């Protein structure tokens, strides 16, 4: 590692801490690196544009964003929620269960934890806290915890990014996320059931069973979305990027033609919002592409591998170390930034230790998602605190048991690779 590299890293951290958007900070720091190293400063622009231009797989991201935005403005979340209430609302602490199940299903559309919390989460929080049936802090805590499931179950923007970095099959990664997502869902439901009994949470009036077919039918078009996406990819019919485009087309079709919930004006606003979200994520990706060039020139991943070799780490302790580092970073930094900058540094070492890249990818994504709801600075904490207006301290207190469950799940996923790899192997993954 050279002095020039240290200057660049210091500049990026310094600019980001002062509040400059992270994408600009990474581009700026990289330009500074080129400047002090006496290299051609146009390389920053070149790497940014060539990287965005040649990474076809990234095009799934704007399409997922567009599909999720369309589903959010359509009356889709209401229908899904009615369906979930009919399904699990009748048990003690039912709305807590609804919260988790809705995250499991809705995650099939948004691929973003924060979108889950803001869209679906807001509605459920309102239901839970109406008439003071649940405390605001409990509603906020379980929403934050269950929103972490979103990007673990496909589709998932973080998994697309990992697939790009690790040059791994996005299809197998998606499949690998399914069981871990369900595992986390079950753990959270179990905890909610236990707490509901202990704290005497209310029982909802059960939705009569005869209404269930009707509600299912109403929610069916929304429920089919993940099926279409996965069938498209695994049926071998379409590439993941094309499947993402089909998902967006499908969302457009049902929200305009079937549900008729979108006016032309609303459609334009939705397109514009998706374009903005795409740009703000895209600039971050672009900045990371430029900075990754600097990291490669400096041969950092190799240095890390040599260092870990010298410590004589086995795969077990290596994964523990990576988990701890990512959890700590996850409570401080934005997930995309961690994924794009930190993961490439550890990936060669993981591969050298014979850790399966699909397994490693799912571990990393679960880890980063847990970071999103970890005190003191997890983004989901602030989103749900903002929705409920509950004091942060109370939310954190209610969140701690859920966080415990999430970390137990993470350890299971880390040390029982079969949880991740069973489903991909069923579909022919050789790993």
């Amino acid at each position, binding site marked *: 590692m050279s002095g020039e590299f240290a200057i660049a890293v210091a500049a990026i951290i310094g600019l980001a801490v002062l509040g400059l958007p992270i994408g600009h900070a990474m581009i700026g720091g990289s330009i*500074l690196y080129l400047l002090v190293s006496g290299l*051609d400063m146009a390389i920053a622009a070149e790497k940014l544009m060539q990287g965005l*231009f040649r990474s076809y797989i990234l095009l799934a991201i704007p399409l997922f964003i567009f599909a999720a935005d369309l589903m959010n403005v359509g009356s889709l979340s209401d229908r899904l929620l009615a369906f979930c209430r009919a399904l699990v609302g009748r048990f003690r602490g039912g709305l807590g269960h609804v919260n988790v199940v809705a995250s499991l299903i809705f995650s099939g559309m948004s691929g973003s934890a924060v979108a889950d919390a803001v869209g679906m989460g807001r509605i459920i929080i309102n239901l839970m806290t109406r008439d003071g049936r649940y405390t605001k802090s409990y509603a906020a805590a379980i929403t934050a915890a269950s929103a972490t499931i979103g990007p673990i179950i496909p589709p998932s923007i973080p998994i697309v990014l990992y697939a790009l970095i690790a040059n791994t099959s996005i299809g197998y990664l998606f499949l690998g996320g399914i069981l871990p997502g369900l595992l986390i869902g079950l753990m959270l439901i179990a905890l909610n059931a236990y707490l509901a009994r202990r704290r005497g949470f209310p029982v909802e009036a059960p939705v009569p069973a005869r209404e269930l077919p009707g509600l299912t039918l109403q929610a069916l078009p929304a429920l089919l979305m993940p099926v279409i996406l996965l069938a498209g990819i695994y049926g071998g019919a379409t590439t993941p990027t094309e499947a993402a485009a089909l998902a967006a087309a499908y969302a457009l079709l049902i929200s305009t033609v079937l549900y008729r919930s979108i006016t032309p004006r609303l459609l334009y606003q939705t397109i514009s919002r*998706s374009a903005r979200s795409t*740009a703000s994520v895209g600039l971050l990706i*672009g900045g990371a592409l430029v900075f990754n060039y600097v990291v490669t020139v400096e041969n950092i991943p190799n240095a890390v591998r040599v260092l870990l070799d010298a410590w004589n780490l086995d795969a077990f302790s290596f994964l523990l170390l990576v988990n701890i580092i990512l959890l700590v970073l996850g409570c401080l930094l934005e997930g995309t930034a961690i994924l794009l900058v930190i993961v490439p540094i550890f990936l060669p070492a993981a591969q050298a230790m014979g850790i399966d890249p699909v397994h490693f990818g799912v571990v990393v994504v679960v880890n980063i998602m847990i970071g999103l709801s970890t005190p003191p600075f997890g983004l989901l904490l602030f989103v749900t605190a903002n929705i409920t207006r509950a004091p942060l301290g109370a939310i954190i207190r209610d969140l701690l048991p859920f966080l415990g469950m999430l970390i137990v799940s993470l350890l299971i996923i880390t040390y029982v690779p079969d949880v991740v790899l069973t489903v991909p192997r069923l579909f022919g993954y050789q790993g």
Partner: protein
Amino acid sequence: MLRRLVKVCEAVSAALLVVMFSAFLLHIAMRYVFNDPLGWTVELQTICWLWLILWASALVLSEDEEIRFDIVYGSVSGRVRRVFRAVFSVVIVALYVVSLPAVYDYVDFMAVDESPYLDVPYNLLFSVYLIFAVASIVRYLWIGGSALMGLPDDRPDSNPAG
């Protein structure tokens, strides 16, 4: 006047997304329905993707839509925030300005080649980075300038990590 310009820039970014999406649909229809795959549709998609990112992040995004690390910035007083903004604006403007000539040469040099399907010269295609760099310079001159003149930022600061 300025507001209308912003609206136009916003419409351009929306149009880029629509073109990208339509190119995808056409691509899929030609490949799977008519069994006659096209190459230029993929190229058009990636051009729209590149332009959308650089265009919108320089000209359309408002400050609260950008992804940033807000923990420190959100927890200091308005006065300190103005100092922060002035400092990062000066640094980023300096870096973009210093690198601009080299970037211009690079974009200009790329005129030697054209994209494989649509025959768009690369200098035209990559010129969006020049738009991005110049617009970012203007944007941060503005942000830094207003900070030095003692104006507060226009971000809603309801939560420190938003």
